[in-house]
C-alpha cells in the first residue's frame, strides 16, 4: 500500500512539474507580479515527493518484500534504525533522496527570495524544474524504487553490513544537501545570466546558498571520512578513492566560487568567471553521480551498476551542459569591462591566487580520476592512479597556497600596503624555528618538510593572532582559515608520527617489543539481533606501565552472510589507539593490527572548525572589509 502511494506520488509530482512549466511561461509573458500558483504548485510537488519518500521508508520499516528495493536491501532481523537508513543506502532510494533535496531547495528558494526580481525567480524555478523532470523520468524509467515482485519473497537479501553504521546512515543525506544544493546555484546563475541580473545584489543573495551547500558538503565529506576511518578498518581517513575524489571536486569548485562571489559582491568584477564556476560546480556533482552509478569506477563505494542508467545520466548531463552553454554565450552579457587590471598587492589579487591554486587542485583531482578511464577506452591499457600521484602533485603546491592564505586576508580591496611587517616577519621566524625543531625530533627528510611545516604554522599563528587583535572583524574568514591550518598540521603530524604493529597471535599469546606488549587474553561470542560477534580482549601495556584494554570484534552477519571486522578505538586528545583483528584462514591464529594514530581527533575537529567558519559567515549581518 505504502509502495503504491509512493509510486503514484512520483507521477503526481511529475504532473506538478508540467503545470509549473506552463504557468511559468504564462507568468513570464503577462503579469508583473510573481504568480502565487507557482509557489503552491512547488509546495504541492514537495509534498508528493515527501509522500513518496515516506512511502519507501514505511515499506522498509514493514519489510514489505513485494517491493524489489526492500527485497534487495533489507532483512527482517535488521535493527529498525538500519531498516530506515537502508532506504537511502541503495541506488533507487538515494535517487529519491536527490529528488527530495531538489524539490525542497527550490521551495525554500522561492519563499526566501521574495525581494528578488520576478523574472529572475520564475526563471530559476523553470531551470530547476528541468533538472527535477530529468531526475523524475530517470527514476521512473530506469530505477523505480517501487518495482513489484510477484510472488512475494518471504525474506530479503539484507543490507551490506559495512553500511550498517550510524555515521553512514546520516552521511548520504548530509552530503546530498551539499551536492544537490548546488543545483540551486546552477539554476539561479542561468536565470540571472539570461535576465542580466548578475549584480552586487545577486551576489549577496546567492552567497547564502553557496554557503549552505558548502557547509553541508564539508560535513558530508567529513562523515564519510570518519566512517572510512573506523569501519573499513585500515586506519586511514582519505584514500584518494575515485568516489571520494568525486565529492572533493564540487567542494573545491564551491570553495573557489565562494571566494569569487565575495569579489563580485564588493567590486562587480569577475562576473563571467562566477557564471562558469557555478555551472561547473553542479556539472561536477552530476558527473560524480554519473561516474558512481554507471559502474565505470573501481571503488569500494560503487553501487550495483547498470549501463542503461549510466547512459541516461550521461545524456541528461550533456543536455544540461548544452543548455548552460547556450545561456552563457547568447544571453550572458559581459559588462564590457574586461580590460580591468588588478593591482598586485590587493585583496582581489589574493582571491585570484586562491582561484588559481584551487583550480589547479581541481584539475589534478579531475585528471587523476578520469584519465585512467579515457586511457582504458582509447587504448585498452589499464593504469592505476593512486595516492602517490595526488601527493606528488598537490603537496608541494600547498606551501605557496598556505602562505597566500595567511597574507591574503590582510590586504585591502583595490590596493594596499602591508602593515605590521614586523609581526609578519616575526611570526614567520617563529614558525620556521618551531618547524625546524619538530623536523629534528621526528628525524624526517629535512628541507621540504621544514618549509611545509613552516607555511602551515605560519597560517596557524597569523590566524591565531588575528583572533586576539581583530576580535569580531573578519571572524568567519579567520575561523575557516585557522581550521585549515590546523587540518594541515594535524594531517602532517598524524602522517609522520603514526606507528603500527602487525602480528599473528593465538589466544593467550603475548607480543613483545621495546615499546609495548600486546596480550591477547580471550575471546567471547555474543549473539546480537542480526549478527554473531566474536569479541577479542587485548591488554596493551606500554613502557610507562599503563595497561589499556581494547576489544575489537569480528561480526558474522546472517544476511548477507559476510564477516566484517570492527575496530576498537580509544580516543584521547593526543592520539587514537586503533586495533583490529582478522581471522587467518584455516588456522587458530588471529591477525592483529595495532596502530597508534596521533592527533586523529584534531583532523575531524579542524574540519568542523572550517565548516563553522562558513556557518558563522551565514549568520553574519554584513561582510565587513
Amino acid at each position, binding site marked *: 500500500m505504502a509502495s503504491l502511494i509512493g509510486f503514484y506520488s512520483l507521477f503526481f509530482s511529475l504532473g506538478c512539474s508540467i503545470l509549473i512549466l506552463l504557468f511559468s511561461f504564462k507568468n513570464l509573458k503577462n503579469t508583473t507580479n510573481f504568480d502565487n500558483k507557482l509557489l503552491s504548485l512547488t509546495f504541492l510537488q514537495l509534498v508528493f515527493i515527501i509522500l513518496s519518500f515516506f512511502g519507501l521508508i514505511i515499506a522498509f520499516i514493514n519489510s514489505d518484500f513485494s517491493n524489489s528495493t526492500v527485497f534487495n536491501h533489507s532483512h527482517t532481523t535488521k535493527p529498525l534504525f538500519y531498516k530506515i537508513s537502508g532506504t537511502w543506502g541503495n541506488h533507487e532510494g538515494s535517487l529519491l533522496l536527490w529528488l527530495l533535496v531538489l524539490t525542497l531547495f527550490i521551495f525554500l528558494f522561492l519563499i526566501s527570495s521574495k525581494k528578488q526580481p520576478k523574472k529572475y525567480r520564475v526563471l530559476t524555478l523553470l531551470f530547476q524544474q528541468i533538472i527535477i523532470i530529468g531526475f523524475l523520468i530517470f527514476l521512473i524509467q530506469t530505477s523505480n524504487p517501487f518495482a513489484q515482485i510477484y510472488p512475494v519473497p518471504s525474506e530479503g537479501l539484507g543490507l551490506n553490513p559495512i553500511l550498517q553504521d550510524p555515521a553512514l546512515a546520516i552521511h548520504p543525506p548530509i552530503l546530498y544537501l551539499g551536492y544537490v544544493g548546488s543545483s540551486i546555484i546552477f539554476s539561479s546563475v542561468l536565470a540571472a545570466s539570461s535576465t542580466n541580473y548578475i549584480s552586487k545584489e545577486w551576489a549577496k543573495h546567492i552567497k547564502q546558498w553557496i554557503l549552505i551547500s558548502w557547509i553541508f558538503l564539508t560535513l558530508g565529506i567529513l562523515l564519510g571520512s570518519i566512517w572510512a576511518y573506523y569501519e573499513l578498518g585500515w586506519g586511514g581517513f582519505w584514500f584518494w578513492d575515485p568516489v571520494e575524489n568525486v565529492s572533493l571536486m564540487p567542494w573545491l569548485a564551491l570553495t573557489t566560487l565562494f571566494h569569487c562571489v565575495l569579489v563580485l559582491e564588493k567590486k562587480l568584477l569577475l562576473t563571467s568567471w562566477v557564471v562558469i564556476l557555478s555551472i561547473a560546480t553542479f556539472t561536477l556533482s552530476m558527473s560524480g553521480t554519473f561516474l558512481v552509478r554507471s559502474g565505470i569506477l573501481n571503488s569500494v563505494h560503487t553501487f550495483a551498476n547498470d549501463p542503461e542508467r549510466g547512459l541516461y545520466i550521461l545524456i541528461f548531463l550533456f543536455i544540461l551542459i548544452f543548455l548552460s552553454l547556450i545561456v552563457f554565450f547568447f544571453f550572458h552579457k559581459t559588462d564590457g569591462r574586461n580590460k580591468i587590471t588588478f593591482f*598586485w598587492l590587493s585583496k582581489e589579487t589574493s582571491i585570484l591566487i586562491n582561484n*588559481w591554486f584551487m583550480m*589547479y587542485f581541481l*584539475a589534478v583531482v579531475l585528471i587523476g580520476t578520469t584519465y585512467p578511464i579515457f586511457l582504458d577506452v582509447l587504448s585498452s*591499457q*589499464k*593504469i*592505476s592512479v593512486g595516492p602517490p600521484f595526488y601527493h606528488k602533485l598537490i603537496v608541494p603546491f600547498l606551501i605557496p597556497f598556505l602562505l597566500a592564505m595567511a597574507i591574503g586576508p590582510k590586504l585591502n580591496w583595490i590596493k594596499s600596503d602591508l602593515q605590521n611587517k614586523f609581526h609578519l616577519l616575526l611570526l614567520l621566524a617563529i614558525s620556521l624555528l618551531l618547524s625546524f625543531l619538530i623536523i629534528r625530533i621526528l628525524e624526517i627528510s*629535512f628541507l621540504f618538510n621544514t618549509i611545509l611545516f613552516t607555511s602551515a604554522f605560519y597560517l596557524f599563528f597569523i590566524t591565531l593572532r588575528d583572533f586576539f587583535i581583530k576580535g569580531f572583524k573578519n571572524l568567519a574568514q579567520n575561523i575557516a582559515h585557522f581550521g585549515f591550518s590546523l587540518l594541515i598540521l594535524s594531517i602532517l603530524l598524524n602522517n609522520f608520527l603514526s606507528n603500527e604493529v602487525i602480528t599473528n597471535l593465538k589466544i593467550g599469546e603475548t607480543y613483545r617489543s621495546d615499546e609495548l606488549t600486546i596480550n591477547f587474553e580471550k575471546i567471547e561470542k555474543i549473539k546480537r539481533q542480526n549478527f554473531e560477534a566474536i569479541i577479542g580482549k587485548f591488554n596493551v601495556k606500554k613502557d610507562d606501565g599503563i595497561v589499556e584494554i581494547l576489544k575489537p570484534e569480528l561480526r558474522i552477519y546472517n544476511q548477507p552472510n559476510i564477516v566484517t571486522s570492527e575496530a576498537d578505538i580509544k580516543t584521547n586528545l593526543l592520539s587514537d589507539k586503533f586495533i583490529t583483528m582478522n581471522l587467518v*584462514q584455516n588456522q587458530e591464529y588471529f591477525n592483529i593490527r595495532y596502530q597508534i594514530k596521533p592527533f586523529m581527533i584534531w583532523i575531524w575537529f579542524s574540519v568542523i572548525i572550517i565548516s563553522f567558519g562558513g556557518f558563522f559567515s551565514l549568520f553574519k549581518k554584513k561582510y565587513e572589509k
Partner: protein
Amino acid sequence: MKILNLLVIIILLFNFNVSKAQDKNLNSKITKNLRCLICQGQSVYDSDTEFANSLKLVVENKIAEGMTENEIYELLKTKYGEWILYDPVLNQKTYILWALPLLLFLIGGAIIFKNLKIKKN
C-alpha cells in the same frame, strides 16, 4: 631582517649533522603503492585477502634478497601489468596525466599575471 639572518645561520649550523631520514619500513611503503587486484580499490597493504597476503610475502622475500624498491615494482609490473602500481610511471601513456595539471597551472598563472599591474597609480 636581523632575525631572518640569525635564523639562517642557526639552521645552517644545525644542518651539518642532519640524520639520514630513513624509511623505517620499506615493506609497508611498497605494499601501500600496490593495488590489491581482487579488491575494490584497496591497496595490498590495507587488504587481508589471500592475494594481498601472498603479495606481502613476495615483497618481503624480494627485499630480503636485496632487491631495490624500483626493481620490485618493475618485477611486479611485468607480472601483473601497470594496473597494480598506484604510482603511475612516467612514460608515453602518462605524459598527459602528469603534464596536463601543471600546464593548466602555468596557463592560469599567465592569465592572472597578464591582468596585474605592478605600479601604483
